[in-house]
């Protein structure tokens, strides 16, 4: 018997008999040798795996602030879009336009001649438009539901996120599904816009709102999941597949905007018609920069960890 156990037994005499007996019974229970061997084997396989994906925590406070900010802006956008107030706000911040964008059939015809692409038949085009609208609305609804349920279970959500078990609750799944639906809807809208207006994107208030929505939803999803699967002890985090989904989807939309703007000059002349869209664009670039650095640091630390094992 070790010295500490002997001293523990001496001190235990201060306890009530029943408590002492229960404590003794609990501590004297030994696992079988097969259980021990299995546990040691699992430790040998799981410990290095956790070392590889372990990293320093981004900072719980920063995540909380980001989620609060994203939630508030999301709320404002959802409310304002439903009452067309958004269009009024955007109109107040219009900068002088440089050149008008020829969003006319002439541009579509020009595109047809250059690309040699056949115009979509009206029926499929309407189907694309309908699917675009339904996907956007369904995605928005799902994100709204996930946002509301997340706020309701605020404390549990953050605590659960730190358990490190990687499981996703139902409202997280709804959020991810909503983001995917929304991105699909955006892409379909871009397709419809291409065949109708001759470009993938145009900076009108509704489209700007869509872009801001997906940006905020992705940042919210990332802040919850990209850094949330952490060890309670080590405070490390894991770049989860959820963060990959949110970051990739947002990156794709930004890419489409850049390509749809037909080079940077068009973006400057067309997209800069609204101060709000410029602010959002800057915000989006900062987000992508943060996520890129974060991903690079994750992979770098993973390579370093692997080299010392």
């Amino acid at each position, binding site marked *: 018997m070790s010295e500490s156990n002997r001293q523990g037994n001496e001190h235990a005499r201060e*306890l*009530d008999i029943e408590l002492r007996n229960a404590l003794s019974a609990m501590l004297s229970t030994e*696992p079988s040798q097969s259980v021990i061997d299995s546990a040691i084997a699992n430790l040998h396989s799981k*410990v290095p795996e956790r070392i590889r994906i*372990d990293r320093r925590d981004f900072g719980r406070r920063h995540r909380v602030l980001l989620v609060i900010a994203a939630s508030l802006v999301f709320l404002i956008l959802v409310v304002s879009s439903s009452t067309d107030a958004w269009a009024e706000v955007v109109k107040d911040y219009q900068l002088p336009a440089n050149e008008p964008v020829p969003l006319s059939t002439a541009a579509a015809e020009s595109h047809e001649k250059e690309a040699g692409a056949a115009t979509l038949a009206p029926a499929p085009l309407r189907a694309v438009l309908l699917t675009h609208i339904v996907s956007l609305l369904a995605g928005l609804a799902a994100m709204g539901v996930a946002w509301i349920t997340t706020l309701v279970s605020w404390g549990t959500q953050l605590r659960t996120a730190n358990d490190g078990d990687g499981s996703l609750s139902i409202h997280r799944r709804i959020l991810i599904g909503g983001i995917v639906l929304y991105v699909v809807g955006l892409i379909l809208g871009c397709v419809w816009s291409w065949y109708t207006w001759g470009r993938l994107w145009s900076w009108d208030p509704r489209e700007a709102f869509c872009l801001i929505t997906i940006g905020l939803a992705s940042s919210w999803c990332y802040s919850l999941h990209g850094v949330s699967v952490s*060890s309670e002890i080590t405070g490390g985090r894991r770049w989860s597949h959820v963060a990959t989904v949110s970051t990739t989807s947002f990156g794709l939309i930004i890419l489409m905007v850049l390509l749809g703007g037909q080079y940077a000059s068009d973006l400057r002349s067309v997209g800069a018609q609204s101060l709000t869209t410029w602010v959002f664009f800057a915000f989006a670039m900062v987000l992508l920069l943060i996520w890129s650095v974060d991903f690079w640091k994750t992979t770098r630390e993973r390579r370093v960890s692997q080299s010392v094992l």
Partner: protein
Amino acid sequence: MCWRQIVDEYGEMIFRVAFGVLHNAHDAEEVAQDVLLEALHRDSLPDAGLLRRMAAFRSIDRLRRRHSHDSLDGGTIPAAEPFPDQLSETAEQIRNLQRAIASLPSRQARCFWLRFVEGLSNQQIAESLEISVSAVSTAIGKAKQSLRSKLDIEESKIP
């Protein structure tokens, strides 16, 4: 010392301590992983006594989380793993004790453990937890009182 050597040298000890508290091999494995990872992230490897203590504290925290989740779900604490020759009454006694320990505040549970399992004096506990000796005495007293009431033990039975 690389992680393999640490697992070989201390893994079984940490697992045994965790199992002694949790009576669940899966949970004990996870606690052992957490403790080993924490040890690896420190500047110097903790000694066996500190590792044992870390294992016990993490196991108690795990008990507390298990208990709080079951309270929310309205379910029961998972039964201890069946092992041979265990009387049902003793198993029930252990489960009640686990539940009672899980309900203790963190400081009380740790002071209780260090006193009656590790066998430390109040002064040693105070130095370990970086609190005052009087705080240790108070925590231990409250822990005993709380465990008595939760296990329905009459105070008059103290020898």
